[in-house]
């Protein structure tokens, strides 16, 4: 059955890769970032390169974590006032998602973001092109067609994809991630791992995304502990950027699965950081899928082999893979249960219905290799509270 694999036309990576901007054609660059990243001076480094080449620059540093539609509209309005021909997102996933969604509104003010979907040709690039420079190694948004924004009223995360939203240029500059705190390095690294693993078991998987996943998984297990242990290790930072990027290419073209449905809901309802949430969900979903999907068992076992598991029995290898994910999380300090993430039991219980409802409305559940009903999701969440491995 025909399918397509879409990635940006160019990815610049390695130290000083931002110098690629010297060759980029344009006149007016609208830089989207957040207050924290702006204070670290990265947007100024980019602005210096462009202004030396006679660009007009505007820096908009009002991007918010888990952007709401209203925040995106503000960005689009500022973009319109500046008449940008180039949009440059400098930041983590939320910044890049804000830039993508604002780009859509800038070019297509007629579009309702809640109805943004994979099927409509948006016809972007009539006004501007998009460059993404990540300051975290996790989201992979710099190479994906994915965007996640939140509904202002309900807080529900709306995740969708559209091929037009794949950026025109991704720049993986390791020095832009060296100020990321250890905890966020760990959480975003787990986000990358979850992208890679879920793309590999998704019902939409394909050979191209599989190739990206295999390398990404191997790299995360090797380099994430080093990046967390020594934040100034630019080699580890650079390797994690590449791993996250490969994972991004993978899931952008074959989608994610149950771990993201759970994680999106945890982020929206309990305000847990995205990487922490999807990472926490990952080993439980591996166990859940392994218990009733031969296809999933085969795929997890293959991933286990990539990181050195030699068990011949595929089911045992798949379960070992879940164990090794938990060990990695322990090693880098990423919580493996709600309890460990300091979510109070009463808050968890009060929000359990909403957690389940939002997960059931998340499109990623349809790509999960094992089918289920909402009662199974409730049970998974309950196991996740104390950190009990899934036995059903």
């Amino acid at each position, binding site marked *: *059955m*025909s*399918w397509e694999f879409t990635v940006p036309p160019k990815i610049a990576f390695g130290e000083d890769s931002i110098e690629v901007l010297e060759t980029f054609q344009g006149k007016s660059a609208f830089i989207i970032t957040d207050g924290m990243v702006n204070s670290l001076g990265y947007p100024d480094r980019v602005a210096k390169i462009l202004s030396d080449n006679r660009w007009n620059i505007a820096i908009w540093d009002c991007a918010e974590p888990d952007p709401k539609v209203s925040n995106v509209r503000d960005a689009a309005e500022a973009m319109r006032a500046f008449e940008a021909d180039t949009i440059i997102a400098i930041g983590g996933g939320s910044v890049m998602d804000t830039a993508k969604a604002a780009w859509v509104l800038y070019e297509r003010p007629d579009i*309702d973001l*809640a*109805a*943004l*979907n*994979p*099927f*409509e040709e948006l016809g972007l690039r009539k006004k501007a092109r998009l460059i993404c420079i990540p300051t975290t190694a996790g989201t992979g948004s710099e190479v994906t067609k994915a965007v996640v924004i939140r509904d202002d009223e309900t807080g529900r995360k*709306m995740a*969708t994809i559209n091929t037009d939203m794949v950026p025109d240029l991704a720049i993986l500059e390791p020095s832009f991630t060296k100020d990321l705190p250890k905890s966020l390095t760990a959480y975003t690294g787990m986000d990358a791992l979850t992208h890679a693993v879920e793309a590999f078991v998704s*019902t*939409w998987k394909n050979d191209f995304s599989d190739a990206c996943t295999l390398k990404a998984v191997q790299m995360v297990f090797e380099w994430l502990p080093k990046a967390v242990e020594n934040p100034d290790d630019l080699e580890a930072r650079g390797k994690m950027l590449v791993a996250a990027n490969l994972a991004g290419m993978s899931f952008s073209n074959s989608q994610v699965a149950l771990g993201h449905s759970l994680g999106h809901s945890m982020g929206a309802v309990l305000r847990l950081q995205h990487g922490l949430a999807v990472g926490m969900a990952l080993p439980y979903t591996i166990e859940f899928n392994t218990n009733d999907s031969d296809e999933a068992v085969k795929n997890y076992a293959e991933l286990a082999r990539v990181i050195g598991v030699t068990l011949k029995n595929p089911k045992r290898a798949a379960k070992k893979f879940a164990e090794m994910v938990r060990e990695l999380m322990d090693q880098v300090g990423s919580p493996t249960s709600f309890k460990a993430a300091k979510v109070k039991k009463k808050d968890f219980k009060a929000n359990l219905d909403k957690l389940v409802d939002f997960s*059931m*409305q998340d*499109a990623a*559940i*349809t790509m999960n290799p094992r*089918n289920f*009903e*909402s*009662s199974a999701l409730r049970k998974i969440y309950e196991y996740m509270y104390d950190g009990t491995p899934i036995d059903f």
Partner: protein
Amino acid sequence: MGDDKLEFPSDEWVEKYVEVVNSSKAYEDAAHDWEGDFIFVVTPDGEHVKEPMRLYIDLWHGKCRAARMATPDDDAEFTYEGPLKNWKLLFDKKIDPIKGLMQRKFKLGKGDMGKIMRYTKAAMELVNATTLVPTKWPDE
């Protein structure tokens, strides 16, 4: 066995399909608060299907509360349409309803895509239900 098959689309097929959907706990669970009706259209292929074949389904809170072969005057909140060969692929689960749209095998002629995207699991369960209806295709 072939004689037990119900021609798709037909009133007999629809009747059986409604029975299957309404006994599906998985569909009821995934669509417990869905409100909306569909017209499914088998578009002409110049060979086996000469005129559009339309099927009306009204889905409400996890149940199918009405369904029939649609008349040309019937209207619904959503239309989902594609040629016969792609409906066969869908019923065989070779493609899923969302990926089918991305592959341009089907198109949503009418309807709020944002609403559909919140109920992709329900859409999958509707497809799963078709596998329980013994189906005879117009080209058989």
